[in-house]
């Protein structure tokens, strides 16, 4: 059953590989093939998710090799849910209206394949490869309209991201040099035996290099300069995908790395400080923004900073809060970018625009309120859980973290309230409908998702806590991935393999 997990990556891959020749044979089939594959992929992901929810997480190996030698996937609640959510998000933002010979559907499928790989893989370099798949697909998506200035945005993103990837690869090399493995589980075992290994200067600088490298996509300071330019220039669908989905993928990698390898090494402090700086700078810049799109871009930076802070708390409450806030952001940000597509004018010129389409505007208000954290919307529960997590964190329960979170929430409230009051000021002379026709459906569905999340909060929160517990469960992760004969201690592993040695090897 779980061996089928590889199909989550392979299905969109095969579809993407064959889409171009298929289009030449039969354009009609080629048009529906993409969405059909995504739908079947989501269904498979949901089947596997139910399986895991019942029987607990499972490991899937490849090539018939046990873990330190080969690559393995680890299927857990968070990863599998992310696969399903990625499929649904891509389907909602699917490029239905592009010309039939556009390569955009292929890029969407490849993005999905990469996202599935990132969500499931338990191997450091494999994660890097899948992350590059997602990154290169996103350069293509930003550049897709092919007009000069979007090409510039794409180049900007590419330069930042490729430099980040090179630094991340350097970090991976350092980790391999230290721990002698690339499997997260095996490295975790090595780290558990030698506590000083990853808290050394090399260990921590490897983490920092990877943090900078992935921080490009996770919009973390100091690698997030591309954000306002790219989100300002690219199409709303693509901005929504980058801010909503791709950033979460980068954060998931950091989360796994931090809690499998770097527990108690001080790396969580690095992530915490990075997150706090990102949060503060993002919200302050959003406060000064004069246009909706710019405001959304900076608020996205702030939200991701908040997520990094949540994930740096080593307790269930903190990580669960991060997961809830991530879900909230994933549902809301793409929709808000779709709104911002038509409300392009400076905010001061948007007076009274809300009255032109009361229903759509009401949904907009609902989403903004959830982003701010107004009860009983999911954003509130996320921030509430986060404060709880900060206060009970083992070493990081510091008042100033709480104060900073509250302060930035206040800043967020001020600038969003300013926007809302302007939108609902006296009736406008020239009403601009916020949404173009083809954007209605995705926004409505995302809004429905938000409302469903609010109503089912009790049910969802138990799942989130379970997911957070699985992410923090180091020994379970290791037990599932590393075969029993090699588990304890490392020396045993060495003697085992010496048995299979025919000739050669290191003296």
């Amino acid at each position, binding site marked *: 059953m779980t061996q089928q997990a590889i199909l989550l990556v392979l299905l969109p891959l095969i579809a993407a590989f064959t889409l171009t020749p298929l289009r030449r044979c039969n354009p009609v089939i080629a048009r529906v093939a993409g969405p059909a594959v995504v739908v079947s992929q989501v269904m498979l992901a949901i089947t596997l998710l139910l399986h895991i929810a019942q029987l607990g997480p499972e490991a899937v190996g490849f090539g018939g090799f046990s873990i330190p030698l080969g690559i393995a996937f680890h299927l857990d609640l968070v990863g599998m849910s992310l696969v399903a959510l990625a499929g649904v998000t891509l389907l909602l933002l699917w490029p239905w209206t592009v010309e039939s010979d556009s390569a955009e559907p292929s890029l969407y499928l490849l993005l999905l394949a990469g996202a599935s790989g990132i969500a499931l893989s338990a191997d450091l370099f494999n994660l890097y*490869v899948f992350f590059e798949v997602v990154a290169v697909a996103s350069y293509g998506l930003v550049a897709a309209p*092919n007009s*000069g200035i979007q*090409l*510039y945005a794409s180049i900007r993103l*590419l*330069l930042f991201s490729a430099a980040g990837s090179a630094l991340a690869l350097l970090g991976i090399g350092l980790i*391999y040099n230290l721990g002698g493995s690339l499997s997260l589980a095996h490295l975790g075992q090595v780290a558990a035996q030698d506590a000083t290994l990853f808290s050394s200067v090399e260990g921590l600088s490897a983490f920092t290099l990877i943090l900078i490298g992935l921080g490009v996509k996770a919009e973390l300071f100091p690698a997030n300069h591309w954000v306002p330019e790219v989100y*300002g220039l690219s199409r709303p669908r693509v901005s929504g995908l980058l801010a909503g989905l791709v950033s979460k993928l980068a954060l998931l990698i950091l989360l796994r790395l931090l809690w499998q390898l770097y527990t108690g090494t001080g790396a969580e402090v690095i992530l915490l400080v990075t997150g706090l700086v990102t949060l503060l700078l993002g919200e302050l810049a959003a406060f000064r923004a004069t246009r909706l799109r710019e405001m959304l871009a900076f608020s996205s930076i702030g939200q991701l900073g908040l997520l990094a802070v949540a994930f740096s708390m080593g307790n269930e409450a903190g990580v669960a809060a991060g997961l809830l806030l991530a879900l909230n952001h994933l549902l809301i940000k793409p929709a808000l970018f779709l709104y911002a597509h038509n409300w392009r004018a400076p905010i001061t010129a948007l007076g009274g625009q809300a009255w032109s389409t009361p229903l759509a505007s009401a949904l907009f208000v609902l989403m903004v309120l959830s982003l701010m954290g107004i009860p009983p919307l999911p954003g509130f529960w996320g921030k509430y859980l986060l404060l709880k997590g900060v206060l009970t964190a083992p070493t990081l329960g510091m008042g100033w973290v709480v104060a900073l979170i509250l302060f930035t929430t206040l800043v967020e409230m001020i600038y969003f309230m300013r926007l809302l009051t302007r939108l609902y000021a006296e009736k406008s002379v020239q009403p601009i409908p916020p949404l173009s026709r083809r954007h209605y459906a995705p926004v409505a569905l995302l809004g429905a998702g938000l409302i469903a999340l609010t109503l089912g909060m009790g049910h969802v929160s138990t799942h989130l806590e379970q997911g957070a517990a699985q992410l923090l469960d180091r020994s379970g992760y290791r037990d599932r991935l590393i075969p029993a004969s090699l588990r304890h201690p490392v020396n045993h592993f060495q003697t085992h393999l010496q048995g299979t040695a*025919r000739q050669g090897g290191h003296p």
Partner: protein
Amino acid sequence: MTPDLLSHLFSIASAALVAIGLFMLVRSHYLLRALLGLTLMEAGVNLFLVSVGYREGAAPPIAIDGQLPAVMVDPIPQALILTAIVIGVGVLGLALALALRLHQSEGTLWLPRLRRRAQSACSKEDAA
């Protein structure tokens, strides 16, 4: 020459390559020069990875006449670099394609000028 000194030599050389590349990438105002910096940076990372797998006096991990050498270098970093090199050339190809198209539509590859145009395009769109 001791192995320790040799490995330090590689570390320093790869750090220098990465630094030169990063500096070029960040500081260049001409797009193609920035991309050249990117390739240098990747070269530095590759050098570092190879030196991670290197063992003093070790042979390549290839059997000759069905016999593996007694002492071999680590094959894993080599596999990683093969992957990284191909990824690098793919990204470079895409970047050059973008640059070419950008030049066709904007007539320049000077980054400061492009940035100014991007900013004014944003506000023009807003006014419309």
